């Protein structure tokens, strides 16, 4: 939208003329949304009948651009996937930007375009937003907050309290890719990995599973803290236990190799395009087959089951056949050497 060295100035956040220009030339141009034409103080829309789900998340990530995505794609996927996990069809989203003075306008435009493309893929409308500029040093480049609203179809009720002993646990694909892709970009770690972030909007999974309600009991996306952390959350919220088989949890050899090298555990690495699904045992095969038809869950695998005892705990059966507790992540998950 300008010269390649154009940067965000404090005036872009002043509410004055430059703010207006930024909104017109960047956001309205790329998002091309009738809701925005009126430039009201907020978005006004009708919702179809049904229960409404709402979710919000803030996105701070270094680096802003990474293999497989960028902060914009992530900001859409994060909120979309939270809505999908609630059983909702994502409909409308708000976006709010906190931008550090001096941020390159070209980068901002790339991020905004990435958000537009990701939203279009899901069919979610970006209907309202906000932009603030803070002084250099007050933010690390760019922070984004998104919030979203979706409507839940009849009969869908995904909650951990609906779990029953014997239910099967499915993960929609290999875990740890996002965490590793980001880690490999960090300063101080000098290695090249072909791994890209799995960052993806998962509405396709939500759609594929709609017809299985109420036998799909619960869904959750294993983001920060990874698969192990989400399983622990669900175990504790359901009051039941969880048992998984180490050998059945899909992890790509590249991710496993890098984790071995760095002393990390892929079960605790973040994902941005995976879903953990709890389903009644007698429907597990059908659900797996349905998932295998969806692009984002072609490698879905059954990894475990819900058990009555010990309640609130996650057990993992190791390759050797021993059960041990798969705990929650305590402290930082940092690379180690010794």
């Amino acid at each position, binding site marked *: 939208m300008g010269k390649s060295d154009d940067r965000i100035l404090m005036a872009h956040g002043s509410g004055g003329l430059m703010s207006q220009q930024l909104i017109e030339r960047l956001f309205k141009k790329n998002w091309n949304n009738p809701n925005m034409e009126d430039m009201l103080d907020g978005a006004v829309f009708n919702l179809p009948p049904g229960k409404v789900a709402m979710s919000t998340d803030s996105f701070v990530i270094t680096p802003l651009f990474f293999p497989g995505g960028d902060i914009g794609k992530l900001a859409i996927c994060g909120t979309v996937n939270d809505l999908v996990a609630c059983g909702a069809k994502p409909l409308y989203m708000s976006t709010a930007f906190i931008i550090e003075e001096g941020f390159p306008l070209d980068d901002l435009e790339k991020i905004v375009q990435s958000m537009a493309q990701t939203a279009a893929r899901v069919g979610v409308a970006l209907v309202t937003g906000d932009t603030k500029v803070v002084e250099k040093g007050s933010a690390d480049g760019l922070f984004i907050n998104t919030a979203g609203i979706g409507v839940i179809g009849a009969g869908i009720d995904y909650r951990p309290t609906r779990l029953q002993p014997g239910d099967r646990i499915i993960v929609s694909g290999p875990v740890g890719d996002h965490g590793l892709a980001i880690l490999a970009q960090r300063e101080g770690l000098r290695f*090249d990995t072909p791994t890209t972030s799995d960052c993806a909007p998962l509405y396709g999974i939500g759609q594929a599973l709609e017809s299985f309600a109420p036998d799909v009991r619960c869904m959750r996306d294993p983001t920060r803290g990874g698969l192990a952390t989400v399983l622990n959350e669900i175990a504790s919220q359901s009051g039941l236990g969880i048992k998984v088989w180490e050998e059945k949890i899909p992890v790509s050899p590249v991710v*496993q190799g890098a984790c071995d*090298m760095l002393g990390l555990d892929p079960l605790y690495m973040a994902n941005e395009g995976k879903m953990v699904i709890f389903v009644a045992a007698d429907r597990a095969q059908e659900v797996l087959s349905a998932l295998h038809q969806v692009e984002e869950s072609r490698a879905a695998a059954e990894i475990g089951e819900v058990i009555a005892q010990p309640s609130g705990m996650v057990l993992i059966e190791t390759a050797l056949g021993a059960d041990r507790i798969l705990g929650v992540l305590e402290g930082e998950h940092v690379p180690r050497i010794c």
Partner: protein
Amino acid sequence: MCLGVPGKIIELKEHNVGVVDIQGNQVSISVALTPEVEVGQHVLVHAGFAMEIIDEEEALKTMALLEEMMSYGEMSIDEPR
């Protein structure tokens, strides 16, 4: 105390720098401690160094030795077969 993983040498450069492939990940390491290493060999990587050249044949020898030692089935009480 000493995390080490196997990697395959895919390139050797000057000043004892080598590139290893660890399950598809590529890492620059020092081969100062294994100066005789050649491209294609597997090494044990620790702290950014090749510590030793790996010889998988030797692992099979250990296995053969142990199978003989245990006479495979006679000594164990809960033999799975």
